[in-house]
C-alpha cells in the first residue's frame, strides 16, 4: 500500500473514530457522579454483612467469589499454555554448564545493583505476605500480594544470580504452589457447599470487623489466590528465563 493510500485510510478511520468517541464521551455521566446501583448497595451493606473493610476484596472473594474462580483458572490455563509452548523442543538442548553459568550473561550486574536487589528481597516478601493476609482490611489481597511475592525471587535474578533463583524457587515447588493455590480456592468453594449449603458460601465465623482474622473465608481465599498467583507468575518467569538463558537451538 502506498503512503498516500495509508494516510487516506488513516484519515478516514481517524475521523470516524473521533466522531464516535466524542459522541460516546458526551453521553457519560459527569466526572465523579457515579450512577450505578450495585456499587452503592455494596458500600451500604458490605461491612455489616461481610465484616470486611476493603469491599473490593469482599466482592472478589465472597460476594462475587465465583467470578474469581473463573479468573483464577484463566491465569492457571494461560500459564499452562506458556509451559506447553516453551517446553524443551526436539532439536533443542540445554547449553552445557559453564563455570560462569551462575553469574548470568545478560550483563555484568554492578555491585550496587546486586546489593540493592538483595536488600530488597526481605522487604518485598514482607510486603507481599502483609498484603495477602490484610486483604479484607486494606487495599490488596491475594492477587496483589501474589504478584509482589513473585517479584522476590525475581530480585535474586536481578542480583545476577539466575541459578540461585532456581534454588530459592525450584521449578517443582512453584508448580506445586500454583496448582495447590488453584485447587485450594475451588476446595474453599466446595467446603461452602458442604458446610453452608451453597458453593463458595461463607462457612467460617465472620469475626470482629477490622481484626486480622475477620471476614470469614476471605482470608483463606486470599491466601489460596496469593499462592496460585505467585506460583503462576514464577512458573512463567522461569520458563521465559530458561528459554533466554539455558535452552539453545540446534546450532547451539
Amino acid at each position: 500500500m502506498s503512503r498516500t493510500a495509508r494516510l487516506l485510510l488513516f484519515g478516514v478511520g481517524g475521523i470516524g473514530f473521533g466522531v464516535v468517541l466524542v459522541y460516546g464521551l458526551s453521553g457519560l455521566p459527569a466526572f465523579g457522579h457515579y450512577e450505578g446501583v450495585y456499587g452503592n448497595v455494596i458500600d451500604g451493606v458490605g461491612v455489616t454483612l461481610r465484616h470486611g473493610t476493603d469491599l473490593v476484596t469482599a466482592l472478589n472473594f465472597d460476594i462475587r467469589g465465583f467470578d474469581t474462580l473463573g479468573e483464577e483458572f484463566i491465569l492457571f490455563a494461560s500459564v499452562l499454555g506458556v509451559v506447553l509452548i516453551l517446553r524443551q523442543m526436539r532439536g533443542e538442548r540445554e547449553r552445557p554448564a559453564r563455570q560462569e553459568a551462575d553469574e548470568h550473561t545478560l550483563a555484568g550486574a554492578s555491585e550496587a545493583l546486586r546489593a540493592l536487589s538483595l536488600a530488597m528481597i526481605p522487604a518485598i516478601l514482607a510486603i507481599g505476605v502483609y498484603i495477602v493476609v490484610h486483604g479484607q482490611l486494606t487495599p490488596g489481597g491475594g492477587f496483589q500480594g501474589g504478584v509482589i511475592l513473585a517479584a522476590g525471587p525475581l530480585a535474586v535474578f536481578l542480583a545476577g544470580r539466575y541459578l540461585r533463583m532456581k534454588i530459592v524457587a525450584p521449578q517443582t515447588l512453584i508448580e506445586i504452589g500454583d496448582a495447590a493455590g488453584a485447587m485450594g480456592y475451588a476446595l474453599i468453594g466446595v467446603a461452602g457447599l458442604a458446610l453452608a449449603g451453597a458453593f463458595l458460601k461463607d462457612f467460617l465465623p465472620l469475626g470482629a470487623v477490622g481484626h486480622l482474622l475477620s471476614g470469614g473465608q476471605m482470608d483463606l481465599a486470599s491466601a489460596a489466590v496469593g499462592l496460585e498467583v505467585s506460583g503462576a507468575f514464577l512458573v512463567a518467569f522461569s520458563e521465559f528465563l530458561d528459554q533466554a538463558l539455558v535452552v539453545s537451538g540446534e546450532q547451539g
Partner: protein
Amino acid sequence: MTLLQIAALASVAIAGGAVVAASDPLRQTLVLSVYGMALVMLFFVFQAPDVALSEIVVSTVGLPVMILLALRKVQEHERERENGEDES
C-alpha cells in the same frame, strides 16, 4: 477533578506517546515500564489502590522482564542464523 488527577492523566498521555515514539524495542521496553508507573499513579489518585497495587508489579517488573527476555531470544536466533549462513 483535582490538580493531582489532571497531572496523573497528563503524565499517562505523555508516557503513552513516548512508548509509541520510541523506535528501538529495548528502549521502548524501559519507557513502557515508566508508562506503567504513570498508570499506577493514575489508579492511585483516582482511588483504585487495589488496581494500583497489582499494576506496580505487573507493568513495571513483570511485563518488561518478559519482553526483554523475548528480545534476547530473538537476537540470539538472528545471530545463530548469521553464523549458520557463514558456515555453509
